[in-house]
C-alpha cells in the first residue's frame, strides 16, 4: 500500500526535476543543431531571425495543400491563441509563453516540422527555416 503510493509520487518528482532542469537545454541544443546544419548548407549563415520566422509562419505558400496555404490556417493568426485542426481538435498555442511544455522533445519537433512543412509548403523545411520559426516561437 505504502509502496504503491510512494512510487508514483517519487516518479513524478523525478520527472519534474528532470524536465525542469532539462527543458531549456533541450531547446538550445536543437537550435544549435539547426544552426550547424544551416551553416553547412550556407556559408553566409548569420544566425536565426525571429522576424523571418514570423514571415514563414504567416505567409501563404502555393506548393502545399490548398486547404492549408499557411501555418496560420490551423494554428490561427495569433501565435498566443489556440488553433484548430480541420477535424475540429483544438491545438495548443504555439507560443512558448502560453504553452510552456512545447519544444521540449526534439523528435516531436522534427516530426511536426516534417509533417506540417509538407502540407503547407509542399516540401520539407530547411534547417534555417526551422531555426527561424523556433526562434520566433520561443520569443512569443
Amino acid at each position, binding site marked *: 500500500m505504502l509502496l504503491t503510493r510512494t512510487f508514483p509520487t517519487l516518479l513524478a518528482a523525478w520527472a519534474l526535476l528532470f524536465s525542469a532542469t532539462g527543458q531549456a537545454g533541450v531547446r538550445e541544443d536543437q537550435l544549435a543543431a539547426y544552426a550547424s546544419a544551416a551553416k553547412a548548407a550556407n556559408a553566409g549563415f548569420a544566425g536565426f531571425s525571429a522576424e523571418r520566422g514570423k514571415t514563414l509562419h504567416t505567409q501563404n505558400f502555393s506548393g502545399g*495543400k490548398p486547404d492549408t496555404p499557411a501555418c496560420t490556417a490551423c494554428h490561427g493568426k495569433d501565435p498566443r491563441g489556440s488553433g484548430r*485542426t*480541420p*477535424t*475540429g*481538435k483544438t491545438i495548443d498555442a504555439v507560443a512558448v509563453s502560453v504553452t510552456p511544455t512545447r519544444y521540449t522533445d526534439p*523528435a516531436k519537433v522534427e*516530426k511536426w516540422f516534417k*509533417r506540417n512543412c*509538407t*502540407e503547407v509548403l509542399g516540401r520539407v523545411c530547411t534547417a534555417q527555416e526551422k531555426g527561424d520559426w523556433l526562434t520566433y516561437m520561443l520569443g512569443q
Partner: protein
Amino acid sequence: MMNIPYRPIFLVLLVLVFSALVLGRARAGGDHYFAPVAHATVKAECGSCHLAYAPSMLPARSWTHMMANLDKHFGDDASVDPKLATEITAYLVANAGDQGGQRYGAKLLRGVSPTSTPQRITELPRWIKEHREVSAQEWKHKDVRTKANCVACHARAERGYYDE
C-alpha cells in the same frame, strides 16, 4: 417427496436474468458507448489531429490496412516511427470491433461485408443509418465542417459516449 418450490425459484431466476441484462447494458453505456483509447501512445499519436477514434469502431483488418498505409492517410502523410506503428497496430487490432471490442462495436459493424476493409467509420452502413437525420446544412456548419468531427455534436465522445 420433497416439495420443490418451482414458482419462487423461477421468479428469482427471472429477476436475476433481467438485472443482468439491464446492468450489462448500463455498464456498456447502451448501444452508444465505445470504450475510448486507453493507451497513452495510441492516444497521443492518433489523437493529435483528430479524436482518437475508438478501436471498436472498425474491424481488425481495417486497422491493419490503415496502419500499413499511414503515408496516404486520407490525403495526408501521417507516417509514424515504425516501432510506434507496430505498438499502435497491436492495440487497435486487439481492441477492434470484431476482436476485444466486440461488445461495443458489434452493432456498428452490422452489415459490413466480411470481405470489405472499410477505412472510414462514417461510411459504415450503420453509421449512415444513425446519422440519416443530420442535414447537409448541419454538416457544413462552421463548428462541424467534417463528419470526422464527432465532438461537435457528441460532447462526451472523448470519453466514449455517443448517445446524444
